[in-house]
């Protein structure tokens, strides 16, 4: 690609600052007992990456099985366990914490001009709860897995399977509290820890997005927690409200489960959208178009997200009137997401666009999330949903928004902020190649699944009719390419830690308080509390700063 906005310091003389949050203290305990939000973010980054590859390996097994129409690689029961664990790991141990716990933890305090999050010890507790949840999931896998699907539909999960529902339930319960405490921390921090002059409408949109997601975490996750408790009680001591033989309604489980799990998808996507706002602004050198609209649309997605959960239950036996209302509300919830896409497009219009790796991922996000989101609207229409639900159309829909959307946004964010977190640049050509490979692989993997769904192939089946094989083979081939695309960043990012170019404070010439500190930052972020005297995405202010620095440098 032609231009680049990257400005690195003179590599002959540049050095990583000797005192930073990594070198401040040494020893394992200084990391395991840290209160520093940046160190906790790195701890999360390592653990989340580990679980991403666990979930990815499970995905690989799924795609391998689906190469042939017969259930020949593994028994059907085993296949059920594989896709269940894939869902549990990817949703609860990767997607939900990915951006908030890594990038949010690292950058929200810096973006608002604070020294740390409001509750550093709760932050560390969050990480430990995540690790405990993760270990419990691993124990579940090792002791035979669970095969109910990640949605644990009753009465299957209570009365009809003998697998590790309780252990998995406990794992999700614990990981859920990790999420609750992270969200709680972010809400308190955003309200109480902003630097002087940092009004709500001067906040980076990344902060708004995480704030909205945090509201969902705090209000939605406890309902999942109590649902798990009820399932556990019914499975163990028979205190139960989901048992039809006693007059209970299994559908009540689904109401309570999806009351969390629908907002959960917004918990997963909103922080990613926050990343995209930052990346698109920086690489088109333009303030985000319609800042207020984007900020309010984040909160609108959060609020509306609470009103639509029964669209996961259209065929399950809810009343027709409820179906009508929820379908209508589902149409409404798409509007704020669309507003964001339009605003990002208008940000790009007449901007000075360059194609560094974060921007490539952002473009991928915009296209793939739009497709995924639109197919969500198709599914919100009840008539279509009755035909397409429980088919591969659903699988394709949520992988487009989650993998094509959220995961691309996560990678965009990791690449965007890597220089700030580590002080090093990654090799640009390899990273751009990885982004393109990921995009190609993704489309090959998941686009055929839309067609498979329309043709009628059911989801969660190890064996399928032979006429679906060719599309499944395409999908698996794409998955292989996608796997390569995800392996590459691991390799070159680790490589860059030692051999990458020194990044300097602000290689992207980005606005935002986090770019006004050294890379990697000091433990206390700022030596002096900054005073915010300009709007967000103020590139003229940035120009002014550069000029002032040149004056200071040339005078001294």
């Amino acid at each position, binding site marked *: 690609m032609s231009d680049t906005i990257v400005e690195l310091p003179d590599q002959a003389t540049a050095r990583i600052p000797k005192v930073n949050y990594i070198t401040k203290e040494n020893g394992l305990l200084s990391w395991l007992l840290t209160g520093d939000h940046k160190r906790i973010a790195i701890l999360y980054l390592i653990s989340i990456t580990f679980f991403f590859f666990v979930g990815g390996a499970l995905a690989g097994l799924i795609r391998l099985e689906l190469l042939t129409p017969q259930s020949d690689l593994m028994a059907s029961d085993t296949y059920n366990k594989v896709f269940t664990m894939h869902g549990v790991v990817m949703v609860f141990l990767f997607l939900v914490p990915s951006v908030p716990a890594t990038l949010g933890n690292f950058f929200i305090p810096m973006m608002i001009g604070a020294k740390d999050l409001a509750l550093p010890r709760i932050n560390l507790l969050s990480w430990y709860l995540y690790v405990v949840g993760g270990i419990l999931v691993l124990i579940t896998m090792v002791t035979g897995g669970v095969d109910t699907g990640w949605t644990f539909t009753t009465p299957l999960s209570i009365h009809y399977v003998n697998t590790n529902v309780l252990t998995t339930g406990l794992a999700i319960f614990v990981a859920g509290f990790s999420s609750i405490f992270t969200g709680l921390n972010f809400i308190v921090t955003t309200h109480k820890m902003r630097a002087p002059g940092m009004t709500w409408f001067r906040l980076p949109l990344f902060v708004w997005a995480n704030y909205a997601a945090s509201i969902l975490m705090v209000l939605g996750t406890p*309902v999942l927690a109590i649902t798990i408790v009820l399932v556990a009680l019914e499975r163990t001591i028979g205190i139960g409200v989901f048992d039809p033989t006693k007059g209970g309604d299994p559908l009540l489980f689904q109401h309570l489960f999806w009351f969390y799990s629908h907002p959960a998808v917004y918990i997963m996507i909103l922080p990613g959208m926050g990343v995209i706002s930052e990346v698109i602004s920086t690489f088109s050198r333009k303030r985000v178009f319609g800042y207020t609209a984007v900020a309010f649309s984040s909160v609108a997605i959060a609020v509306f997200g609470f009103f639509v959960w029964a669209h996961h239950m259209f065929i399950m036996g809810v009343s027709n009137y*409820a179906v009508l209302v929820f379908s209508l509300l589902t149409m409404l919830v798409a509007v704020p997401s669309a507003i964001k896409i339009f605003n990002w497009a208008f940000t790009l219009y007449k901007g000075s666009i360059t194609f560094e790796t974060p921007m490539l991922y952002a473009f991928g996000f915009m296209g793939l999330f739009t497709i995924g989101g639109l197919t969500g609207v198709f599914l919100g229409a009840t008539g279509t949903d009755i035909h397409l639900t429980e088919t591969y159309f659903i699988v394709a829909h949520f992988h487009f928004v989650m993998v094509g959307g959220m995961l691309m946004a996560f990678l965009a964010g990791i690449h965007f902020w890597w220089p700030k977190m580590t002080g090093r640049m990654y090799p640009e050509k390899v990273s751009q190649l990885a982004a393109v490979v990921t995009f190609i692989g993704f489309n090959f993997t998941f686009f055929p699944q839309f067609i498979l769904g329309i043709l009628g192939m059911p989801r969660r089946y190890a064996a399928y009719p032979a006429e679906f094989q060719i599309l499944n083979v395409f999908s698996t081939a794409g998955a292989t390419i996608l796997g390569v695309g995800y392996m590459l960043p691991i390799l070159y990012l680790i490589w860059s830690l030692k051999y990458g170019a020194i990044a300097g404070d602000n290689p992207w010439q980005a606005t935002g308080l986090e770019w006004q500190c050294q890379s990697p930052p000091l433990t206390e972020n700022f030596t002096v509390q900054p005073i915010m005297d300009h709007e967000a995405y103020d590139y003229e202010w940035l120009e002014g700063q550069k000029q002032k620095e040149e004056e200071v440098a040339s005078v001294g």
Partner: protein
Amino acid sequence: MSEHKEHEHHIVSPKVYVMILLALLVGTAATVGASFVDMGPWNPVINLAIATTKATLVVLFFMHVKYGTKLTKLTVVAGIFTFLCLVAMTLADYSSRAWGQW
């Protein structure tokens, strides 16, 4: 950025606490008494109304929300709203099932 911290400076006097205590005890007697009187469909309404009044008194005075910041009040409202959303929309499904097809 630092908000006016009313509740730090406003110390609620024990007299207020005693009055609220008495109000809560009266409310308890009322709600127990009301459950023995047949008021038809109004029984659950009165029951919940008294319970909500008691809860409101606890929130406003024992938990100092009356003397608290706007943010505190907004937070309480947000929690109640989300809970009502869960209850109302779930109940909407259950109560409309009996209405049949269309």
